[in-house]
Structures are given as structure tokens and as C-alpha cells.
């Protein structure tokens, strides 16, 4: 019953449905990249600098004759993979710290919030660049760097939720009826704070994909993984000769991030007003 309510509210937001459709298409593209474009995307497929709609390169080829379309399909894998894993890692750090700060309050809260503030003040992209550069670029260091610079907003959100829920009377009732701290956190507070966290997480996947593409654009991508940001970075110097090399991977990023944002807004519409209504 709750589920059908959720879908109805989600589907009411037309943008969200559109986003879901685009996102599904991108996931399918990523999943079947090796079927649709067999072979290594790094290999030469045709002559260099072929414009779009040429033989063997529907979206054109780059200065080494690599197929742009194949690069985009394989790049989708990297983008989605990094977006999801780094968000999961950021969630683990952020929600844990935020929950601890919000639930315990006092000095623990103070210490954690100072730490969070520090990470929020640091220009996050600069830190990501420094981290990846010093620890040498690889999928692992990129995911770790993105997680390290992305968790503070989640921590603040989780803290705010926990802080307000902790003083709610149903949580106090749980204390007076003798429930354990872990049961109060997991059964009483967490389920009620989940909606905003889910919404933020979905938006964070989008931000993570943007961050990854920015790192790759600067040449800090995993050298073995074809990625959209790398393709644009490589195309930058030859933009006068071959506009397609930067336009198509860029569109791929815009579509993906847009789809994720739309889905995030739909989730927000579907998850949050319900709570508001039940409160009123």
C-alpha cells in the first residue's frame, strides 16, 4: 500500500519519469557496452579525425582513430561505477559520523562537527586533485578521493535529522520504555531520517560523476579505464579541428547527471511530502 503511494507520487513528477527512462537507457548502454561495441575502446577503429556518421565511427573518431561512440559506451560503465561506489563510501562515512554527532550531542557532537566543518571549508575539488595526484590515479584512489571530499553534507544532514528526531517524543518514549540505544537508533530514528538521506544520496551520485569527469579531464583518471572526462580532456587541444570529440562525451555527461537530478527530485517529491502530511 505504501509502495503504490510512492510510485503514484513519483510518477506525478513528469521530469522524474523522464529521468528514470534516460537513466535506464544509460544503464543498459553500460551493461551491453561490450556487446554493442566489441573490442577495446582504446584500439584504433578507423582513420583519425573522422567526422560523425562515418563508416565504423557513428559519432566520429579521435586523433588516433578510436571510435567515440565506443568510448562513450564503455565510459558509461566507469562513470556509473565510480558514481555509485563513491556515494556508497561517502554515505558510510557521512551517515555514521552524522548519526553519532546527532544522537550523542555534547562533546562528541562538537568534535565531529569541527572535523566536518574543516572538510567543508577545504576547497573539495583541490583536495581531490591533490589526493589523486599524490596517491597516483586509479579507480580506487579516485573513488576514495571523491568519497573523502563528498561526505560532509551527508554528515550534516544526518546530524540534523538525528538531532531533531532525538528530541521527538516517540524517541523519548522508546527511552522510557527501556529500549536499547542501538534499537533506538536503528528502529526508531534511522527509518524516519532515511527519506532526506536517500534523496541526497541520489543527487550525490550525480555530483560524484561530475567530479570523476573533472578529474579525468585534468588527466587524473585511471589510465586503463576509458572515461568521458578523459575524452573531453584529450579533445580540448584539437577542438578547432574536431568538435565532435568533445561535444558527444559532454552530452553523455549532461544526460546522465540530468537524469540523476530529475530522479532525485522525483524521490524528494515522493518521499518527503508524505512525512509532512502525516505530521500535520
Amino acid at each position, binding site marked *: 500500500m505504501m509502495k503504490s503511494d510512492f510510485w503514484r507520487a513519483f510518477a506525478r513528477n513528469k521530469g522524474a519519469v523522464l529521468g528514470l527512462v534516460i537513466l535506464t537507457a544509460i544503464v543498459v548502454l553500460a551493461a551491453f557496452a561490450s556487446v554493442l561495441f566489441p573490442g577495446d575502446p582504446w584500439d584504433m577503429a578507423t582513420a583519425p579525425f573522422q567526422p560523425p556518421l562515418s563508416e565504423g565511427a557513428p559519432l566520429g573518431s579521435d586523433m588516433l582513430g578510436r571510435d567515440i561512440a565506443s568510448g562513450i559506451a564503455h565510459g558509461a560503465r566507469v562513470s556509473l561505477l565510480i558514481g555509485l561506489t563513491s556515494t556508497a563510501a561517502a554515505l558510510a562515512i557521512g551517515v555514521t559520523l552524522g548519526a553519532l554527532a546527532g544522537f550523542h550531542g555534547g562533546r562528541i557532537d562538537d568534535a565531529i562537527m569541527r572535523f566536518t566543518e574543516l572538510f567543508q571549508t577545504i576547497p573539495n575539488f583541490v583536495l581531490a586533485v591533490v589526493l589523486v595526484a599524490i596517491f597516483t590515479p586509479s579507480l580506487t584512489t579516485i573513488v576514495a578521493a571523491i568519497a573523502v571530499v563528498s561526505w560532509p553534507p551527508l554528515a550534516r544532514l544526518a546530524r540534523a535529522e538525528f538531532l531533531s528526531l532525538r528530541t521527538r517524543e516517540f524517541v523519548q518514549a522508546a527511552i522510557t520504555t527501556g529500549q536499547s540505544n542501538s534499537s533506538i537508533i536503528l528502529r526508531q530514528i534511522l527509518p524516519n531520517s532515511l527519506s532526506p538521506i536517500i534523496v541526497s544520496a541520489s543527487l550525490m551520485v550525480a555530483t560524484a560523476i561530475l567530479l570523476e569527469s573533472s578529474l579525468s579531464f585534468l588527466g587524473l583518471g585511471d589510465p586503463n579505464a576509458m572515461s568521458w572526462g578523459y575524452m573531453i580532456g584529450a579533445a580540448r587541444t584539437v577542438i578547432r579541428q574536431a568538435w565532435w570529440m568533445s561535444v558527444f562525451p559532454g552530452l553523455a555527461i*549532461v544526460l546522465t547527471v540530468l537524469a540523476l537530478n530529475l530522479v532525485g527530485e522525483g524521490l524528494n517529491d515522493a518521499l518527503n511530502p508524505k512525512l509532512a502530511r502525516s505530521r500535520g
Partner: protein
Amino acid sequence: MLGFAHLFASRLVKAVAILIAIVVMNFFLVHAAPGDPAMVMAGEAGAADERFVAQLREQFGLDRPLYEQLGTYVGKIAQGDLGFSYRQQRPVWDILAERLPATLVLTLTAFVLALALGVALGTLAAVTVGTWADSAITVVALLAYATPIYWIGLMLSLLFSIQLGWLPAFGYETIGAGYTGLAHAADVAAHLILPVITLALFYMASYARLTRASMLEVRGLDFIKTAKAKGLSQSRIVTRHVLRNAILPVITVAGIQAGQLVGGSILIETVFAWPGIGRLAFEAVLQRDYQVLLGIFLVTSIMVILFNILTDILYGLVDPRIQVSQ
């Protein structure tokens, strides 16, 4: 006004604490990096020069216990010694000082533009909620939100510089033109337009969305009902009652996002060959010049702290409650 001085003092103490934390973080980054700290500090180019590496070892006491090394490192930074770039054969601080003005001009202009236009567009969208103007602003904001800024930069320069030839595609000034005075200023301004717009676009979208949402929320509050019951005109209610209250969360977010904006300058300066710190960061990454990179990390952090103090003051000017409650 006493409250304001207090606020400022406490912000300053916080800023110093954050700076120390960042210096300590820098130190541990060097030590946590794979390989010998001296090699890391020397960077790719310097690592081959044994005399330079030995000198670094000596300077930073790299054979001493870790806490002593930390003391030495913090002491050096406190004196303004950010290390030496072997690659460029100059002290890191000199290199940064030379590049700083260009970045400050770029980021400050973009910040002010994004805030002013974002609030203006958000207000327009909120006032015309549900009409085509509101939808248009919402859609543009959504797109700007989803587009990587470096790609926007490339596309804008493809269009305005390469295709139309209206604006210079890169650099800080026309090299060899020898402009002076006003002509020079105009030349720099022309070079500034594309990078500033590119950098500002994302944040403008962000502030527009936030202003719109915030205004719609404030519009439903009790004191707006009071204002209506006084018989005030719609325009007066919007300007005097709604906007001023709605702008507070926008200022807060602007402060929080200042770090992202400064970080974004790396990408923008790379795309437009803007000779600032961001461009320097790109070069340092390519050359594995870690001393320079860590120096940039510190200097950009200081910039963010300054932006934060700026937004705090702005907030204090708008909200009278701050001066006492803080």
C-alpha cells in the same frame, strides 16, 4: 557593534585553527604518499637530483622522529616558507604570489555575479511561479546544474571565439598588443568574460533555485499574512518582507559553496589558459610538482576562509539577531 567584533574575532580564531589543521593534513599527505617523503617533496623532476633530495632531508629533518618533523614543517609554513619547486627553480611562495591576483579577479567576479544574478532570477521565478518565465528559469537552472563546467567553457569558446570570433578564447590579455591604461583594462575584461560566465553559471543556477524555493517557503509564513492584513501592496510585501528573509539561506549556502567555486577555478583556468593558481595546479599535476600542489591547496583554503568571512559579514548585515545571539 560589540557583537560584531566578537563575531569577527571568533571567526578569525576558527580560521587560524582550520589553517593549522590543513597544514598538518599537508604534512601527513606527504608522509602517507607512496615512496620516500623526500622524493615526494622533490617532485618528479627533482627526484633525480641527489643533492637536492639530500638538502630536503636535511631541511625538513626527515631522519628525525615524526612529531619533530611536523614541528619543523609547521614552523616553516608559519614563516611563509612553502618549499621550493625544483622544476621551476623558484620558491613556491613566489610562484603562487605571482599567480594569485588573476585567480582572485576571476573567482571574486564570478562569486558576486553568481550571487547577484542568481538571487535576481530566483526572485523573478518565485514571483512568476507557474508561468513560462518560472519554467524557463527552472529548466535553465536544471541544465546548468547537470553540465560539467569545463565542458560549458569549451562549448562557449567553441561558439563565441572559434565560430563567431567575438571574444578571445584564452589568456589574460592580448600578448604583444602592448595596451596600456584603459585599453589594457578593456582587453583584460574581454578576456575575463567567458571564464567568469562559465564559472558563475553553475552557482547562479544553484542560488536561483535556492532563492526561488526559499521565497516560496517564506511566502507561507505567518508574518507575510500580517503584512497582507496591513493592506500592503504585493511589490512591497515581496521586497520588504519576503526577499530579505528568503535571502538568508542563500547567503549560508553561498558561504558553504565558496570552496567549490574556488576549486572550480582549476578547471576554468585550464580551459581558458587563465594564468592563475588553477592553471598552475594543472601544470603542477602534469609535472608531478607536489610542493607547488600542496602550496596551492593551502592558498586556496585561505581564499575559501576569506570568502566565508565575507559571507558571514553579509549575513550579519542582513540578520540583526546574529549580533547578540552569537
